[in-house]
């Protein structure tokens, strides 16, 4: 639909007259909707770039501190090997919510692939599905197929494993943008969500995130994508007599493994 039949012109015209704007005022503030690189932002970008080990540790401590009250379980581990062991252990200890089959769905992501979970879980009657997106662009028919495939597997899987773009320490939030192979439903539909990140992915807060998205050439180029989500702990509700219950619609439990390296 183009702008002509969207009612835009009349609508905006009404707003302009309500604001008492004449046609001369129209482009007075063209920069209004463009982020401005201020000195403060420069300081923030510098700070992110030149973080010392001590500062990284402080960020990690803050993340752990803020994760506790929202029941987000954080484990700090030294390498991929230990994360693999921790995840295998978790899968062994947790039972599926909706049926008996233990299925896992995971992002197609270098960090997750390096864990080699399929191999670690082979012979235990546990299926690992990787949310592939191969060939999706080339063949029209595959899109629908791939979609149906992912949909089926996120529904039957009781654990979803993702990485994240960033982790905001101050609110204990994983920040995820959407890419092929890194579907949104993997962190949403399964009963348990596991996130795996490296220590250097932790940033301080929203201010840092928005500075990076606006001014870091690499990160800014990709932008917010069509869906950027912050996840801060497991799903929760307090709608029955204000009693806190986890697992309203999203995952009931959430685990984040931080690889310290």
């Amino acid at each position, binding site marked *: 639909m183009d702008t002509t039949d969207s009612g835009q012109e009349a609508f905006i015209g009404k*707003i302009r007259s*309500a604001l008492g704007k004449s046609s001369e005022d129209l482009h007075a503030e063209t920069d209004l909707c463009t982020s401005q690189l201020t000195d403060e932002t420069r300081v923030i970008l510098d700070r992110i770039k030149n973080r010392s080990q001590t500062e990284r540790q402080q960020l990690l401590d803050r993340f752990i501190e803020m994760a506790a009250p929202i029941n987000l379980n954080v484990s700090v581990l030294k390498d991929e090997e230990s994360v693999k062991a921790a995840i295998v252990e978790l899968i062994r200890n947790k039972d599926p919510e909706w049926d008996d089959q233990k299925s896992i769905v995971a992002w197609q992501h270098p960090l997750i692939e390096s864990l080699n979970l399929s191999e670690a879980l082979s012979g235990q009657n546990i299926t690992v599905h990787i949310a592939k997106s191969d060939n999706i662009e080339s063949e029209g028919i595959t899109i629908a197929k791939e979609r149906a*495939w992912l949909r089926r597997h996120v529904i039957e899987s009781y654990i979803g494993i993702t990485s994240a773009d960033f982790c905001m320490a101050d609110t204990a939030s994983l920040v995820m943008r959407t890419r092929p192979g890194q579907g949104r439903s993997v962190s949403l539909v399964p009963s348990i969500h596991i996130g795996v990140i490296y220590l250097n992915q932790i940033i301080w807060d929203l201010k840092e995130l928005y500075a990076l998205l606006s001014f870091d050439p690499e990160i800014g180029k990709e932008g917010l994508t069509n*869906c950027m*989500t912050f996840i801060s702990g497991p*799903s929760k509700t*307090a709608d029955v007599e204000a009693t806190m219950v986890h697992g309203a*619609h999203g995952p009931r439990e959430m685990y984040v493994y931080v690889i310290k390296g």
Partner: protein
Amino acid sequence: MSEIFIGNYKTEARKALGNKVLQGALSDLQHRFGRGTALAYQKLPEGPDLRLKAHGIRQKAIENLDVLLETLAANVRKNGGHVFFAEDSRAALNYCLETARKHNVKLAVKGKSMVSEEIGLNSALLENGIEVAETDLGEYIIQLAGERPFHIIAPAIHKTRQDIGRLFTNKIGISYTDDPPRLTRAARKSLREKFLSADMGFSGCNIACAETGHILTVSNEGNIRMSTTMPRVHVAIMGMERVAARLADHDILLRLLCRGAAAQNMGTYASYIGGPRYANQNDGPDEFHLVILDNGRSRILADEEFREMLYCIRCAACLNVCPVYGKIGGHSYGHPYSGPVGAVVLPLLAGINEAKDLCQGETLCGACQDACPVNIDLPRMLLALRAKLADGDPDWGVTRANPSENAIFKMWSWVIRNRQTYEFFLRAVSFGQKIFPQKDGMIRRLPPPVAGWTRGRDIKPLADKSFMQRWKKGL
């Protein structure tokens, strides 16, 4: 097809005052959220004054709303989304229904959205044979019960766990339980089926970002993510005022929104959604529609006295501190926009005379402004509405709410400007009042036409001697 019903304020308020369970729930709610939010503002690195800065951000956004909305629409379209500008609720509903028809939608799921209540989306869908499921647990309970939300953030706060247990037994056929985790699990199971089979998902929008062309939605339950991820089509509806210029503004507004709404640092899920899935992505909706709604807002925008009301981001912090809401609860306001925000917004949207009880019922104590994340001067606007009701205002189509009030004040003004008449009046009253029943030095009941004054309170009788008489005798 507006869903705004007003007119039972006094009856509903009286009902609420007599309901002990409700009074307990309201008191708990205000203790928890009201105090929690104040504390959360204190803990901000910038302190509670960040609210003033947010006020400035909202002011600038509203004063440039035309530019912001054009930029937002252009960017959403660039991302592959559709944008529709709806002048009123009918236009918005028609667009939603048309989109639903185009996709042959049988079942729609909905995240909590005040604006969809405002336009009456649910009943419009049902009338057109489309099943619609509310997915926020509180809203789901309300929908099953066939009621209206009691609170913007906590819609079912007036229901006890036993109420909900009975409701679920009757409506979704589970065996009776009043255990909140088990009730939540029952709703989780029942709604999961809806999420996975729905063809269309509706959401509101907390604050859009013009710079990037995204809407932002926040929820704790994950229902909005479900509604906007699993169905083939996502339709987001936003009031035209809910937009910020840039990401930097979002830093401040999002932090304040979460604190104002639920005293949280951050809601569990916050999603920036800017369009349908890309061709190479294997989940997310095929189509994304953004409906931007006026429905009377441009009229508020045109009046500088009330323009500030459009800064509101509908967090409900004002409900959680309001002494009036804290007693009479949400149903008295007759609409999901309740409390101090409702007392200003509803008269402006639904008619000032029609909704006069709402703005006249508030106390002007100012607690709402202190709790507001964007520091909106609600008491000022409540007073301005009352002034219109007292004097009438042709621009807003307001007639004098109480013509006799005006006559009485004119008479009173004449009495007090004539010393002898005034003295006579005082003597007559101080003699005459002796026949009325008194207790502890207070008059319990006055006769008509002033009987209303003592219906809910006592009044102090006039002193035997006036101050002037005592002054002349050297006190």
